[in-house]
Protein backbone atom coordinates (compact mmCIF):
# COMPACT_ATOMS: atom_id res chain seq x y z
CA UNK A 1 0.00 0.00 0.00
CA UNK A 2 1.23 3.46 -0.84
CA UNK A 3 1.61 5.62 2.22
CA UNK A 4 0.93 9.23 1.29
CA UNK A 5 3.69 11.61 2.25
CA UNK A 6 3.68 15.31 2.95
CA UNK A 7 2.88 16.11 -0.67
CA UNK A 8 -0.33 14.14 -0.64
CA UNK A 9 -1.81 14.67 2.78
CA UNK A 10 -5.49 14.93 3.38
CA UNK A 11 -5.20 18.64 3.57
CA UNK A 12 -3.24 21.20 5.45
CA UNK A 13 -3.88 20.92 9.10
CA UNK A 14 -2.99 23.69 11.50
CA UNK A 15 -2.47 27.08 9.86
CA UNK A 16 1.07 28.48 9.65
CA UNK A 17 0.44 31.05 12.40
CA UNK A 18 -0.94 28.43 14.81
CA UNK A 19 2.32 28.23 16.74
CA UNK A 20 3.32 31.67 17.97
CA UNK A 21 6.98 32.62 18.13
CA UNK A 22 8.27 31.56 21.55
CA UNK A 23 5.30 29.30 22.35
CA UNK A 24 7.72 26.44 23.07
CA UNK A 25 9.61 28.45 25.71
CA UNK A 26 7.85 28.21 29.08
CA UNK A 27 10.59 29.89 31.10
CA UNK A 28 9.30 33.44 30.61
CA UNK A 29 5.84 34.78 31.17
CA UNK A 30 4.39 38.27 31.57
CA UNK A 31 7.79 39.81 32.09
CA UNK A 32 8.72 37.29 34.79
CA UNK A 33 11.19 34.43 34.79
CA UNK A 34 10.13 31.01 36.00
CA UNK A 35 11.76 29.68 39.16
CA UNK A 36 13.63 26.39 39.06
CA UNK A 37 16.06 24.46 36.90
CA UNK A 38 15.80 25.36 33.21
CA UNK A 39 15.68 22.24 31.06
CA UNK A 40 15.30 21.42 27.41
CA UNK A 41 13.12 18.59 26.16
CA UNK A 42 13.78 17.35 22.65
CA UNK A 43 12.39 14.48 20.70
CA UNK A 44 11.35 13.07 17.37
CA UNK A 45 7.87 12.01 16.36
CA UNK A 46 7.46 9.16 13.86
CA UNK A 47 4.68 7.05 12.39
CA UNK A 48 4.52 3.26 11.98
CA UNK A 49 7.15 2.97 9.22
CA UNK A 50 9.55 5.23 11.13
CA UNK A 51 8.97 8.21 8.84
CA UNK A 52 9.26 11.52 10.70
CA UNK A 53 6.17 13.69 10.88
CA UNK A 54 6.46 17.35 9.96
CA UNK A 55 4.30 20.16 11.30
CA UNK A 56 2.79 17.91 13.94
CA UNK A 57 1.55 19.92 16.92
CA UNK A 58 2.56 19.12 20.49
CA UNK A 59 1.28 20.85 23.59
CA UNK A 60 2.52 20.37 27.15
CA UNK A 61 1.03 21.14 30.56
CA UNK A 62 2.99 20.84 33.79
CA UNK A 63 3.34 21.93 37.40
CA UNK A 64 5.81 24.63 38.42
CA UNK A 65 9.09 24.00 40.23
CA UNK A 66 7.17 23.64 43.49
CA UNK A 67 4.81 21.02 42.05
CA UNK A 68 1.90 23.49 41.92
CA UNK A 69 -0.55 23.90 39.02
CA UNK A 70 -1.59 27.40 38.08
CA UNK A 71 -5.27 26.46 38.18
CA UNK A 72 -8.02 26.96 40.80
CA UNK A 73 -8.46 23.18 41.25
CA UNK A 74 -5.02 23.02 42.88
CA UNK A 75 -5.49 23.83 46.60
CA UNK A 76 -2.05 25.48 46.56
CA UNK A 77 -2.57 27.52 43.39
CA UNK A 78 -2.30 30.84 45.24
CA UNK A 79 1.38 29.97 45.75
CA UNK A 80 1.97 29.12 42.09
CA UNK A 81 5.02 30.73 40.49
CA UNK A 82 3.81 33.99 38.89
CA UNK A 83 6.55 33.71 36.26
CA UNK A 84 5.40 30.32 35.01
CA UNK A 85 2.38 29.72 32.81
CA UNK A 86 2.75 25.93 32.59
CA UNK A 87 1.55 25.45 29.02
CA UNK A 88 3.40 25.51 25.72
CA UNK A 89 3.04 24.49 22.09
CA UNK A 90 5.56 23.35 19.48
CA UNK A 91 5.49 22.07 15.92
CA UNK A 92 7.84 19.42 14.56
CA UNK A 93 10.31 20.33 11.82
CA UNK A 94 10.95 18.44 8.57
CA UNK A 95 12.94 15.79 10.48
CA UNK A 96 10.09 15.28 12.95
CA UNK A 97 11.99 17.02 15.76
CA UNK A 98 10.45 19.23 18.42
CA UNK A 99 11.92 21.19 21.30
CA UNK A 100 10.58 22.74 24.49
CA UNK A 101 12.47 24.96 26.89
CA UNK A 102 10.90 24.80 30.33
CA UNK A 103 11.70 24.23 34.00
CA UNK A 104 11.92 20.89 35.70
CA UNK A 105 8.57 20.47 37.48
CA UNK A 106 8.39 19.64 41.17
CA UNK A 107 6.46 16.60 42.39
CA UNK A 108 2.74 17.40 42.59
CA UNK A 109 0.83 15.89 45.53
CA UNK A 110 0.83 12.09 45.15
CA UNK A 111 2.72 12.15 41.84
CA UNK A 112 6.24 11.88 40.53
CA UNK A 113 7.51 14.86 38.51
CA UNK A 114 6.08 14.64 34.99
CA UNK A 115 4.97 16.60 31.97
CA UNK A 116 1.67 16.02 30.14
CA UNK A 117 1.87 15.86 26.35
CA UNK A 118 -0.83 16.20 23.73
CA UNK A 119 -0.35 15.26 20.06
CA UNK A 120 -2.42 16.70 17.23
CA UNK A 121 -1.98 15.87 13.57
CA UNK A 122 -3.80 14.99 10.38
CA UNK A 123 -4.57 11.29 10.32
CA UNK A 124 -5.08 11.28 14.08
CA UNK A 125 -8.82 11.19 14.50
CA UNK A 126 -8.57 12.56 18.03
CA UNK A 127 -6.00 14.19 20.28
CA UNK A 128 -3.51 11.64 21.64
CA UNK A 129 -2.41 12.16 25.24
CA UNK A 130 0.70 10.84 26.92
CA UNK A 131 2.95 11.76 29.86
CA UNK A 132 6.70 12.09 30.14
CA UNK A 133 8.46 11.12 33.38
CA UNK A 134 11.99 11.94 34.50
CA UNK A 135 12.66 8.67 36.29
CA UNK A 136 11.05 5.43 37.44
CA UNK A 137 9.06 5.89 40.61
CA UNK A 138 5.82 5.17 42.37
CA UNK A 139 3.23 7.11 40.41
CA UNK A 140 -0.44 6.21 39.85
CA UNK A 141 -0.36 7.08 36.15
CA UNK A 142 2.91 5.26 35.47
CA UNK A 143 1.58 2.27 37.43
CA UNK A 144 -1.48 2.15 35.13
CA UNK A 145 0.83 1.43 32.17
CA UNK A 146 1.78 -2.24 31.57
CA UNK A 147 5.16 -2.84 33.29
CA UNK A 148 6.95 -3.72 30.06
CA UNK A 149 6.03 -0.39 28.43
CA UNK A 150 6.71 2.03 31.30
CA UNK A 151 10.27 2.74 30.16
CA UNK A 152 8.82 4.29 26.98
CA UNK A 153 7.47 7.15 29.10
CA UNK A 154 10.78 7.94 30.80
CA UNK A 155 12.96 10.60 29.21
CA UNK A 156 16.50 9.61 28.25
CA UNK A 157 19.48 11.77 29.15
CA UNK A 158 18.73 15.47 29.60
CA UNK A 159 16.01 15.19 28.21
CA UNK A 160 15.04 13.22 25.14
CA UNK A 161 11.45 12.07 24.74
CA UNK A 162 10.69 10.40 21.43
CA UNK A 163 7.16 9.62 20.38
CA UNK A 164 6.21 6.75 18.10
CA UNK A 165 2.54 6.89 17.18
CA UNK A 166 2.26 3.25 16.10
CA UNK A 167 4.32 0.10 15.79
CA UNK A 168 7.35 -1.43 17.50
CA UNK A 169 8.15 0.58 20.64
CA UNK A 170 4.89 2.49 20.34
CA UNK A 171 4.46 5.25 22.93
CA UNK A 172 1.75 4.46 25.49
CA UNK A 173 -1.23 6.79 25.13
CA UNK A 174 -4.11 7.30 27.54
CA UNK A 175 -7.81 6.89 26.82
CA UNK A 176 -9.03 9.89 28.86
Amino acid at each position, binding site marked *: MMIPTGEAT*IGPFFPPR*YVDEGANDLTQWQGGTARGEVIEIRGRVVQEDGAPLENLILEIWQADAGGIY*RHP*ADPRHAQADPGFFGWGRAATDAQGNYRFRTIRPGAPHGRQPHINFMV*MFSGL*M*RILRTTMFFAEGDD*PVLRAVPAGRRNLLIAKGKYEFNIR*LRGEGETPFFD*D
Partner: protein
Amino acid sequence: MSTLITKRDERTQPVRVVAGYAQTQVRNPREPLVSRPPTLSELTGPMDVAGRVRLLGGDIAGHGERQAIGQLMHLKLRVVDEDGAPVAGAVVEIWQANAAGRYIHPNDDDHAPPDPNFYGAARLLTDASGAFELRTVKPGAYPVPDSGGWWRPPHIHFSLFGKVWLSRLVTQMYFPGEPLNEQDRILNAVPDAAARERLVARFAPPTGEPRNALVFEHRIVLRGRAATPAQH
Protein backbone atom coordinates in the same frame (compact mmCIF):
# COMPACT_ATOMS: atom_id res chain seq x y z
CA MET B 1 -13.35 24.23 42.28
CA SER B 2 -13.31 20.71 40.96
CA THR B 3 -14.44 19.26 37.69
CA LEU B 4 -16.00 15.85 37.38
CA ILE B 5 -14.78 14.19 34.25
CA THR B 6 -16.56 11.19 32.82
CA LYS B 7 -15.11 9.06 30.06
CA ARG B 8 -16.12 9.98 26.55
CA ASP B 9 -18.75 7.69 25.03
CA GLU B 10 -16.91 5.79 22.28
CA ARG B 11 -19.93 5.81 19.95
CA THR B 12 -19.93 9.60 19.95
CA GLN B 13 -16.27 9.78 18.90
CA PRO B 14 -14.67 8.89 15.56
CA VAL B 15 -13.09 5.49 15.08
CA ARG B 16 -9.33 5.88 14.92
CA VAL B 17 -8.52 3.85 11.82
CA VAL B 18 -10.66 4.79 8.84
CA ALA B 19 -11.01 2.79 5.60
CA GLY B 20 -9.91 4.90 2.64
CA TYR B 21 -7.93 7.31 4.81
CA ALA B 22 -4.43 5.86 4.61
CA GLN B 23 -2.67 8.04 7.19
CA THR B 24 -4.97 6.83 9.94
CA GLN B 25 -3.58 3.33 9.43
CA VAL B 26 0.02 4.30 10.21
CA ARG B 27 -0.48 7.02 12.83
CA ASN B 28 -2.97 5.67 15.33
CA PRO B 29 -1.83 3.41 18.16
CA ARG B 30 -2.05 -0.33 17.68
CA GLU B 31 -1.87 -1.02 21.42
CA PRO B 32 -4.98 -0.46 23.50
CA LEU B 33 -5.04 2.99 25.09
CA VAL B 34 -4.24 2.94 28.79
CA SER B 35 -6.89 3.90 31.36
CA ARG B 36 -5.47 6.05 34.12
CA PRO B 37 -6.90 7.49 37.30
CA PRO B 38 -7.45 11.22 36.84
CA THR B 39 -5.25 13.24 39.16
CA LEU B 40 -4.83 16.96 39.70
CA SER B 41 -2.47 17.00 36.73
CA GLU B 42 -5.19 16.11 34.22
CA LEU B 43 -7.97 17.94 36.09
CA THR B 44 -6.16 21.24 35.85
CA GLY B 45 -5.05 22.93 32.67
CA PRO B 46 -3.96 26.20 31.16
CA MET B 47 -6.28 29.03 32.15
CA ASP B 48 -6.30 32.38 30.38
CA VAL B 49 -4.49 31.05 27.33
CA ALA B 50 -5.22 34.48 25.87
CA GLY B 51 -2.33 35.69 28.03
CA ARG B 52 0.02 33.35 26.24
CA VAL B 53 -1.05 33.42 22.58
CA ARG B 54 -1.68 36.29 20.18
CA LEU B 55 -5.36 36.86 19.43
CA LEU B 56 -6.35 37.34 15.80
CA GLY B 57 -9.55 39.15 14.93
CA GLY B 58 -13.03 37.71 14.52
CA ASP B 59 -13.52 39.29 11.11
CA ILE B 60 -11.65 37.46 8.38
CA ALA B 61 -13.90 38.32 5.42
CA GLY B 62 -12.13 41.63 4.74
CA HIS B 63 -13.47 45.08 3.90
CA GLY B 64 -13.53 47.66 1.12
CA GLU B 65 -11.06 46.88 -1.63
CA ARG B 66 -9.72 43.91 0.35
CA GLN B 67 -12.82 41.75 0.54
CA ALA B 68 -12.46 37.99 0.30
CA ILE B 69 -14.27 36.29 -2.57
CA GLY B 70 -17.14 34.07 -1.53
CA GLN B 71 -20.50 33.95 0.21
CA LEU B 72 -20.31 36.25 3.21
CA MET B 73 -21.43 34.52 6.41
CA HIS B 74 -21.62 35.13 10.12
CA LEU B 75 -21.06 32.20 12.42
CA LYS B 76 -22.59 32.51 15.88
CA LEU B 77 -20.86 29.97 18.06
CA ARG B 78 -21.45 29.00 21.66
CA VAL B 79 -19.08 26.87 23.76
CA VAL B 80 -20.39 24.95 26.76
CA ASP B 81 -18.89 22.37 29.12
CA GLU B 82 -20.22 18.93 30.04
CA ASP B 83 -22.86 20.47 32.34
CA GLY B 84 -24.12 22.84 29.65
CA ALA B 85 -22.48 25.76 31.47
CA PRO B 86 -21.00 28.41 29.19
CA VAL B 87 -17.21 28.37 28.89
CA ALA B 88 -16.36 32.06 29.22
CA GLY B 89 -13.01 33.55 28.29
CA ALA B 90 -11.98 30.44 26.38
CA VAL B 91 -9.55 30.70 23.50
CA VAL B 92 -11.01 29.31 20.28
CA GLU B 93 -8.76 28.89 17.25
CA ILE B 94 -10.40 28.66 13.86
CA TRP B 95 -9.14 27.87 10.39
CA GLN B 96 -10.76 27.12 7.08
CA ALA B 97 -10.26 26.93 3.32
CA ASN B 98 -11.24 29.84 1.09
CA ALA B 99 -14.36 29.83 -1.09
CA ALA B 100 -12.52 27.78 -3.73
CA GLY B 101 -11.48 25.10 -1.25
CA ARG B 102 -7.86 26.24 -0.89
CA TYR B 103 -5.91 26.74 2.35
CA ILE B 104 -3.15 29.25 2.89
CA HIS B 105 -0.61 26.56 3.60
CA PRO B 106 2.56 25.45 1.81
CA ASN B 107 1.27 21.88 1.54
CA ASP B 108 -1.88 22.91 -0.30
CA ASP B 109 -0.68 23.71 -3.80
CA ASP B 110 -2.37 21.41 -6.23
CA HIS B 111 -5.75 22.64 -7.28
CA ALA B 112 -7.69 25.77 -6.40
CA PRO B 113 -6.47 29.39 -6.45
CA PRO B 114 -5.54 31.25 -3.28
CA ASP B 115 -7.41 34.46 -2.48
CA PRO B 116 -5.00 37.27 -1.61
CA ASN B 117 -7.67 38.82 0.62
CA PHE B 118 -8.34 35.70 2.65
CA TYR B 119 -5.96 34.23 5.22
CA GLY B 120 -8.53 31.91 6.76
CA ALA B 121 -7.54 31.76 10.43
CA ALA B 122 -8.76 33.49 13.58
CA ARG B 123 -8.12 33.22 17.30
CA LEU B 124 -10.92 34.50 19.50
CA LEU B 125 -12.14 34.65 23.06
CA THR B 126 -15.62 33.57 24.16
CA ASP B 127 -17.65 36.16 26.06
CA ALA B 128 -19.39 35.65 29.43
CA SER B 129 -22.08 33.51 27.78
CA GLY B 130 -19.52 31.31 26.03
CA ALA B 131 -20.37 32.92 22.68
CA PHE B 132 -18.58 34.67 19.87
CA GLU B 133 -19.29 35.69 16.33
CA LEU B 134 -17.05 35.18 13.34
CA ARG B 135 -17.44 37.12 10.09
CA THR B 136 -16.04 35.07 7.23
CA VAL B 137 -16.86 33.57 3.84
CA LYS B 138 -18.25 30.10 3.42
CA PRO B 139 -15.43 27.61 2.72
CA GLY B 140 -15.46 25.56 -0.47
CA ALA B 141 -15.25 21.80 -0.75
CA TYR B 142 -11.99 20.25 -1.95
CA PRO B 143 -10.82 16.89 -3.31
CA VAL B 144 -8.46 14.80 -1.18
CA PRO B 145 -5.41 13.85 -3.29
CA ASP B 146 -4.97 10.18 -4.24
CA SER B 147 -8.08 9.13 -2.36
CA GLY B 148 -10.25 7.63 -5.08
CA GLY B 149 -12.80 10.42 -5.31
CA TRP B 150 -13.10 11.59 -1.74
CA TRP B 151 -14.00 15.25 -1.40
CA ARG B 152 -14.05 17.05 1.92
CA PRO B 153 -17.37 18.86 2.33
CA PRO B 154 -17.26 22.54 3.29
CA HIS B 155 -16.12 22.69 6.91
CA ILE B 156 -14.47 24.93 9.49
CA HIS B 157 -11.82 23.70 11.96
CA PHE B 158 -11.91 24.57 15.66
CA SER B 159 -9.36 24.10 18.42
CA LEU B 160 -10.74 24.81 21.89
CA PHE B 161 -9.39 25.15 25.40
CA GLY B 162 -11.80 24.18 28.18
CA LYS B 163 -11.34 24.52 31.90
CA VAL B 164 -9.04 21.51 32.29
CA TRP B 165 -6.49 19.52 30.27
CA LEU B 166 -8.98 16.73 29.55
CA SER B 167 -11.47 19.18 27.99
CA ARG B 168 -9.14 20.19 25.17
CA LEU B 169 -10.91 19.57 21.87
CA VAL B 170 -10.09 19.81 18.17
CA THR B 171 -13.14 19.45 15.94
CA GLN B 172 -14.79 20.58 12.71
CA MET B 173 -18.13 22.12 11.87
CA TYR B 174 -20.11 21.18 8.75
CA PHE B 175 -22.93 22.89 6.88
CA PRO B 176 -26.50 21.59 6.67
CA GLY B 177 -27.77 20.11 3.41
CA GLU B 178 -24.38 19.54 1.81
CA PRO B 179 -24.44 16.36 -0.33
CA LEU B 180 -20.77 15.70 0.42
CA ASN B 181 -21.58 15.32 4.13
CA GLU B 182 -23.07 11.90 3.33
CA GLN B 183 -19.80 10.44 2.04
CA ASP B 184 -17.16 12.28 4.05
CA ARG B 185 -14.82 9.76 5.64
CA ILE B 186 -14.03 11.93 8.66
CA LEU B 187 -17.57 13.02 9.54
CA ASN B 188 -18.88 9.49 9.04
CA ALA B 189 -16.14 7.96 11.19
CA VAL B 190 -18.41 8.87 14.11
CA PRO B 191 -20.68 5.81 14.56
CA ASP B 192 -23.57 7.54 16.34
CA ALA B 193 -25.92 9.49 14.04
CA ALA B 194 -27.02 11.89 16.77
CA ALA B 195 -23.39 12.69 17.55
CA ARG B 196 -22.73 13.36 13.84
CA GLU B 197 -25.68 15.77 13.84
CA ARG B 198 -23.93 17.75 16.57
CA LEU B 199 -21.17 18.53 14.08
CA VAL B 200 -23.55 20.24 11.65
CA ALA B 201 -24.35 23.94 12.07
CA ARG B 202 -27.88 25.30 12.01
CA PHE B 203 -28.89 27.62 9.18
CA ALA B 204 -30.64 30.68 10.60
CA PRO B 205 -33.37 31.99 8.27
CA PRO B 206 -32.30 35.39 6.87
CA THR B 207 -33.70 38.44 8.63
CA GLY B 208 -31.84 41.10 6.65
CA GLU B 209 -29.22 41.45 9.38
CA PRO B 210 -26.29 41.39 9.20
CA ARG B 211 -26.49 42.93 5.75
CA ASN B 212 -25.48 40.66 2.85
CA ALA B 213 -24.46 37.79 5.12
CA LEU B 214 -25.97 34.37 5.76
CA VAL B 215 -26.07 33.35 9.40
CA PHE B 216 -25.16 29.95 10.80
CA GLU B 217 -25.40 28.99 14.46
CA HIS B 218 -23.39 26.28 16.15
CA ARG B 219 -22.85 24.91 19.63
CA ILE B 220 -19.79 23.01 20.80
CA VAL B 221 -19.94 20.83 23.93
CA LEU B 222 -16.45 20.12 25.24
CA ARG B 223 -17.12 16.84 27.07
CA GLY B 224 -19.80 14.63 28.58
CA ARG B 225 -22.66 12.56 27.16
CA ALA B 226 -23.60 15.24 24.63
CA ALA B 227 -20.00 16.03 23.70
CA THR B 228 -19.15 17.30 20.26
CA PRO B 229 -17.09 14.61 18.52
CA ALA B 230 -13.42 15.23 17.80
CA GLN B 231 -12.62 15.76 14.10
CA HIS B 232 -9.07 16.10 12.84
